[in-house]
């Protein structure tokens, strides 16, 4: 903890306050510290509806599969979510869930894949990656990358256009999506059509202005973030050899990446690292679109879906998907 007074935070949009309060009550009842990770994980598991309940009567189908993990690592569970009515050459979405790299299951991220399958006929693959601290970095991002390789190699079987696969996630899932994009570039791996980074967790150093503005307040505050990165990196944290795949802000060069969509709240820890990541992509001549929503807390568009600002955020993201994937929403 720093002894300096925390800088004045950007205040919340009053329309988001109820959603924030509900988020804190539902998700962050127990402060996330080194010794409460497992308790938090157990609580988290109780708030994620099973996939059967998430899909209900929707005209979608799901299928669980086991796919090869990274070399020398266990197999990975994935769940495929797609329209019951199959199409040819549909866009594909690799969905990576949030939860600070220490919490959550792939079913925390499936609502997005359900929404996209309904709206655009996408085929989604939700990946169950290994969590820290039992599996420190880069286990999670390597699992996600292995899932991408499997997805791309099985595109034809899944009815997916291999030229239109994007990677998408929120929070830790956004950071992992950025990490998978870096690995795909580095390894000459599958060509991604885009990376959708929603309030992404990118930087283990936790030293931006915004990371100090939300110290003890808001959703996913400075202390939660600190706990999570220490769980992922241990003694390696803050060092010079942190892998960019684990903490994408550490990448020396951000050229040659798939087009990025970055969105974040103006009132959250990840604001400044997200803006910096976009700025570095532009400086390299890369494509990125950035939206920083006024007075918005971490995860606002999911937890306050009726607020005007959340509707605008969902529309802006939707516009980017239409432009990037060349899709039109179903009526």
């Amino acid at each position, binding site marked *: 903890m720093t002894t300096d007074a925390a800088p004045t*935070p950007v205040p919340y949009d009053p329309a988001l306050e109820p959603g924030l309060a509900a988020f804190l009550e539902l998700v962050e009842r127990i402060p996330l510290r080194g010794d409460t990770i497992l308790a938090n994980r157990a609580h988290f598991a109780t708030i994620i509806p099973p996939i059967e309940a998430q899909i209900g009567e929707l005209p979608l189908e799901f299928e669980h599969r086991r796919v090869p993990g990274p070399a020398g690592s266990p197999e990975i569970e994935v769940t495929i979510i797609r329209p019951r009515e199959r199409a040819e050459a549909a866009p594909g979405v690799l969905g990576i869930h949030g939860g600070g790299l220490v919490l959550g299951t792939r079913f925390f991220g499936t609502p997005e894949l359900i929404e996209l399958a309904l709206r655009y006929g996408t085929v989604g693959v939700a990946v169950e990656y290994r969590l820290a601290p039992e599996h420190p970095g880069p286990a999670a991002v390597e699992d996600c990358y292995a899932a991408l390789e499997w997805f791309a190699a099985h595109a034809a079987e899944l009815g997916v256009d291999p030229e239109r696969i994007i990677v998408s996630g929120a929070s830790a899932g956004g950071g992992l999506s950025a990490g998978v994009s870096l690995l795909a570039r580095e390894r000459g791996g599958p060509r991604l059509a885009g990376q959708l980074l929603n309030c992404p967790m990118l930087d283990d150093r936790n030293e931006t202005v915004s990371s100090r503005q939300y110290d003890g307040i808001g959703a996913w505050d400075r202390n939660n973030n600190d706990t999570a990165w220490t769980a992922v990196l241990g003694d390696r944290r803050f060092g010079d050899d942190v892998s960019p795949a684990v903490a994408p802000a550490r990448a020396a060069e951000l050229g040659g990446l798939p087009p990025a969509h970055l969105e974040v709240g103006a009132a959250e820890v990840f604001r400044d690292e997200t803006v910096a990541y976009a700025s570095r992509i532009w400086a390299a001549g890369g494509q990125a679109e*950035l939206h920083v929503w006024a007075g918005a807390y971490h995860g606002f568009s999911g937890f306050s879906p009726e607020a005007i600002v959340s509707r605008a955020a969902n529309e802006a993201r939707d516009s980017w998907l239409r432009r990037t994937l060349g899709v039109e929403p179903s009526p």
Partner: protein
Amino acid sequence: MTAYPPVPFADELLPALEAMNAAPQPPLTEESLPHTREGADRMFPSAAELVAGRAVEAEERVIPGPAGSPELEITIFRPTGHAAASTPLPALVNYHGGGMIVGHRSWEHGRVVDLVESLGVVGVNVEYRLAPEHPYPAGVEDNYAAFVWTAEHAAELGVDPERIVVMGGSAGGGFAAAVALMARDRKGPALAGQLLICPMLDNTNSTVGSYQYDGIGTWQRELNLLAWRMVLGAELAGSTAAPAYAAPSRAADLSGLAPAFIEVGAAEMFRDEDVDYASRIWATGGQAELHVWGGAFHGFDMYAPDTELTRAALASRDSWLRRVLGL
């Protein structure tokens, strides 16, 4: 290979850019300026032509300028039938673009009328003095005077004085940012928000973005250098000693400002200065919303209106205005 490869333009914007390149304008220089400006006030439809058949009225007015300066022409747009006795409406005070050296308010009557019509607000479109004949601070003082006049005549205009937003694109965005600084510093009338569309904020031309669009795009590096020289003179043109009301990036303190909306293209030279301005507002605990549209060039919404990018950008603006004005 240049040292600063630019962010490429979005495919759907290319036809608009190609059309512009197919009919190149003579290069803008100090010498060609009078010719460039000729007929500027007749290039776009007049206020009366624009509102014909729409539920919007236009009124031309002349109002006092800053102390010791000439009067200002403004055009007021309001929903048809709106009067002093009606329920007060929010107001948008608009400053047109053109690098602070060219342009006329009629260039942006369309933008203002669209907002008056869709949001049910009063619009005030301001004619300010241009550089180099009228260097800093003529333009910005004109624009501040028009904002103060609007606030002081709120009752007569049927405007809610607590819900006035200043706005503008490009140079107009820079002016709107400066007026927000002046309103804070001079303890002027209440300002509910500043809507900054690809604003021209930084006179130093020193960001990566300012080098990436050297010789390409719409508003290019050379034009920006020329404009700042005309506004500030050769000595202050690129200097960090330039006054903040000329170049808002020079303001030492961005706290206590009206909520800001900042929109810019990812493929234009103002990108980095606009992102920086938003970041500095947030660092003080101030409210700002930032949108940087993928592959978008300077002024994309004007040059390429019928595109997905423009529709999305207008929707975001609309959403923010509804939030800050309670509409």
